[in-house]
């Protein structure tokens, strides 16, 4: 909904993502802020931002598959692993550059999503969720058994390089991660406004009606899985080349469940919702990790008995509260807030 007094006079204005001058100012300020974090942030903040950006990329993919197309995927962490290992193998074994390995990691993960998304053609809902969870176990099982993937010991991918300049520090790598995150957000935002994006939404809302309307639901379901897993593969590749180590234990089922939780809290079916969900959950985790020892020190009689499960309890409680009181997520609250200030004093919401 545009601010009062703002009208679109042509198709270009109508289809613009960033429409008003204020929105341009905010976007540019946010980008400048993001790209200057490595200059003023300490190591902890830079690491937090980098990891959050990687999660944003992964959850953007899940948003396309689950939020827009309605195909539940509980194996998203497994597809991240596919991307991470592909990228590591291409750089270690074949000596390819990271800049080539990155998109190839995405494509490989996308193709694996294509394969494991095939059950989506015949099943949905709970059964599809189980099938994707099984995909995760299959992927991790294979990675743990092959010599070429280092079995349980994993692999040590090299840091990316630009010529002879190695991006082997937290600061240098954060620029790469933030840039890729901005690019993937741009791609995701535009994808959902294309014919494919509209087809995803139609399938999510009523796949039978979509089929009757002439949408090839088999094609678009597989495409949703491919694109979602492409994003996961990109995220996995960045993770591996940042931490310089990948093991199968880094990609777990609880991680996939946390991604779903981020979608619920942020808001399904919205690109902005990904940002709300990922940032709020990451900060919640950090806050709980910070406060648990303080709590245990403040109440010695109880000690870590209460503090230890605090994170799990908090995460579960937040998800349940959102499902009950705000199932549309933080993005819905943000939209209410925007309408409230844009139409003030006539915002009768």
């Amino acid at each position: 909904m545009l601010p009062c007094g703002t009208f679109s006079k042509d198709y270009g204005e109508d289809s613009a993502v960033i429409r008003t001058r204020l929105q341009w100012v905010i976007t540019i300020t946010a980008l400048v802020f993001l790209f200057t974090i490595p200059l003023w942030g300490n190591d902890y903040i830079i690491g937090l931002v980098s990891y959050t950006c990687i999660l944003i990329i992964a959850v953007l993919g899940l948003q396309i598959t689950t939020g827009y197309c309605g195909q539940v995927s509980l194996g998203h962490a497994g597809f991240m692993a596919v991307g991470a290992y592909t990228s590591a193998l291409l750089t270690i074994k074949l000596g390819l550059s990271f800049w080539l390995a990155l998109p190839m990691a995405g494509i490989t993960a996308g193709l694996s999503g294509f394969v494991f998304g095939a059950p989506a053609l015949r099943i949905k809902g709970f059964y599809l969720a189980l099938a994707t969870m099984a995909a995760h176990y299959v992927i991790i099982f294979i990675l743990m058994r092959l010599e070429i993937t280092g079995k349980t010991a994993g692999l040590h991918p090299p840091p990316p390089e630009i010529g002879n300049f190695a991006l082997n520090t937290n600061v240098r790598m954060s620029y790469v991660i933030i840039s890729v995150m901005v690019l993937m957000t741009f791609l995701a935002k535009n994808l959902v406004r294309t014919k494919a994006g509209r087809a995803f939404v139609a399938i999510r809302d009523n796949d039978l009606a979509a089929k009757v309307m002439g949408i090839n639901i088999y094609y678009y379901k597989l495409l949703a899985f491919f694109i979602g897993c492409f994003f996961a593969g990109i995220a996995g590749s960045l993770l591996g080349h940042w931490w310089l180590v990948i093991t199968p234990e880094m990609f777990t089922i609880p991680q996939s469940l946390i991604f779903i939780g981020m979608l619920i809290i942020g808001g399904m079916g919205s690109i902005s919702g990904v940002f709300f969900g990922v940032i709020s959950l990451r900060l919640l985790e950090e806050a709980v990790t910070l406060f648990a020892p303080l709590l245990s020190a403040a109440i010695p009689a109880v000690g870590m008995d209460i503090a230890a499960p605090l994170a799990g309890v908090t995460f579960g409680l937040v998800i349940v509260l959102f499902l009950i009181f705000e199932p549309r997520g933080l993005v819905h609250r943000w939209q209410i807030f925007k309408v409230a200030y844009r139409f003030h004093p006539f915002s009768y919401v």
Partner: protein
Amino acid sequence: MRKGKLLVSVVSILVLSLVALPLVFGCAEKPAVPGKEKYVSLLSLSDYSGPIATITSGGDMGATIYMEYVNAQGGFDGIKMKWIGVDTRYDTARGISAYRRYRTDPTILVVIPQGTPMVEALWPLIQADGKVLSLPGTGKYAVRTNGDWLVPGKAYIYAPPYQDMFGAIVDWVVKDWLAKGKSGMPVLGYYNWDNEYGHESLLGGKEYAEKVGIKLLPPEFFPVGAVEHTVPLTRLAEAGANYIFAGGVDPTPAVTIKSAFDLGLTKKIQFIVDYWGLFDHVGGKLYPDAVEGAVITSCYLRGDEGRDNPWCKKLRDFKGIPSSEWTDCITAGVGTTGMHFASGIEAAVKMGMSYEKILVGDNFLKALSKSRDYREEGVTGPFVFSETNRRTLDSVRFYQYKNGKEVPITDWMPCPDTVSLHSFR
């Protein structure tokens, strides 16, 4: 409408607080070392609510109690110890984030990442910061090739490497087999978590079993958290296993042995667990009938032997902890993480190092290698760390559950060097 706006405002404030606080803490300057009290800290990137919470929460408690006791006596020439425990829930990302938060603390000398993937991810960061890494039993860090470490850097292994432990188990199995009057060689089954820790014992242990001539069945692995073990245990039994090594951190081996008990397998197969299995307050309490007769491989004193050890008794009295609440995990923490750290600092002080010099990783390791001259043994086997041996301990003791109690069945047995039999990449 007003209620809706109020709700929006409250939620917004909460969300903004959540956003602001970690940023404030993350950006805040670390407090300067207090002028009067000098601390040397150990950062434990622990797991208090994940799959290995049983051992790490108890172990951290034991180490903390030991440090509090030493600090209460005035420390070592006024230099006191601090334990910083962070719950990472066995997640690498959380471990890395937690380390980045604390890495600028100048008093942190030793870092213990509890979890093998976390060790791999944090190794370069910890070495770059000049700190010392302490790890439980990953064998490749003990390997030397041509006089150099396979993995160069500053580290010590606070328990015998898992593959060395497995070698000791193989030796005990052969001895037990022959003591029972059997001929030939026994058949040993391997059943462990399907992760890096679960596979670790075979990296060298498998080669040692072949060398000894024992028949090691194809290993069976299961996902962390699995509760159903019927099929693989039956497979091992039908393959003729006389002994089965059941790995994992308690209550995992307890659940495994319970499954075997329900199948009637514990009558004909001897089950053996590792350092982190069948604790008296977990596995021993959950399934006392099932674990009866099970053998435990331990690098620290267990059961009543641990509780009644003079050091543990001193610490129990200091904290007012009744004997019944002093667990195996607490003894483990005292004897391994706590005492190793403390003995290094004590040795450094006795060698005349200043507080600032002790905070240098190389100096601490040098002192740790000399610490056996000052160390009171007792809770663990002999201390063997040196400049050419990252192992702090290289012997284990076997216990067996008899009438609900952990009874020692051997003295401290040296672990064979099985790590060197495997070619690590």
